[in-house]
């Protein structure tokens, strides 16, 4: 009886002393994006993709983001959760005020001149960027990239008429 107890004790001690060996895991590698209909054949592994290719954003997405127009900006600002309702309405008020000034300018009244309007526009863009940059950096980046495009639309009488 004592022998069995000793054996059990030795067995327990042996199990307890085994240190946990880390399980060998394959390194985490981002699998390249694949269309849902493209499936791998059973037993085959995905072909290795160079790191630069794997992390590079799709060119089409970058291109689309760079051409955020006024309507697109408005839509994105409406849908973002980075700013609250009061802020959204206040921004809309300021955008409307700026558009009124541009309307006056394109209507032939001066002042304001384009030189007067540019700082107003830049300030508004900066306000938008600073408001969203923490919680929606993607939108902030798109706004920054679209700054000149939007200015081009506002400054040109023909383009402005289409807004």
């Amino acid at each position, binding site marked *: 009886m004592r022998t069995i107890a000793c054996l059990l004790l030795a067995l327990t001690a042996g199990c307890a002393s085994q240190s946990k060996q880390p399980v060998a895991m394959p390194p985490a590698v981002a699998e390249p994006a694949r269309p849902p209909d493209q499936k791998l054949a059973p037993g085959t592994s995905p072909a290795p993709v160079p790191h630069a290719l794997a992390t590079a954003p799709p060119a089409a997405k970058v291109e689309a983001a760079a051409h955020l127009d006024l309507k697109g900006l408005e839509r994105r600002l409406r849908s973002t959760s980075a700013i609250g309702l009061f*802020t959204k309405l*206040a921004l809309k008020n300021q955008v409307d005020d700026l558009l009124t000034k541009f309307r006056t300018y394109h209507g032939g009244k001066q002042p304001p001149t384009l030189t007067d309007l540019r700082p107003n526009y830049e300030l508004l863009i900066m306000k938008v960027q600073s*408001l969203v940059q923490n919680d929606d950096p993607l939108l902030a980046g798109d706004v920054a990239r679209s700054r000149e495009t939007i200015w081009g639309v506002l400054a040109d009488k023909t383009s402005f008429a289409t807004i």
Partner: protein
Amino acid sequence: MHARIPALLAAAVLFAQPTPAATDDAVLKDLTAVITLHGKPCGEVTRADRMGDNDFIATCKDGNRYRVRTKDERVVVEKQ
């Protein structure tokens, strides 16, 4: 005992008035952004008392108080 109940009810009705509702962080952040957008000194809104629909009294860290509300589809910020 029964005589006390009407008195208690009367007291409850008497003291029941629309109290400023406690507001969450999102509202404080929103009010801070709006006051800043209007170029008013504030720093950060630390307390917001709801006065009605889209109508708040915002108390700033620096002691300034503003009434922030919407009127004719515009945000109005008035110093209190």
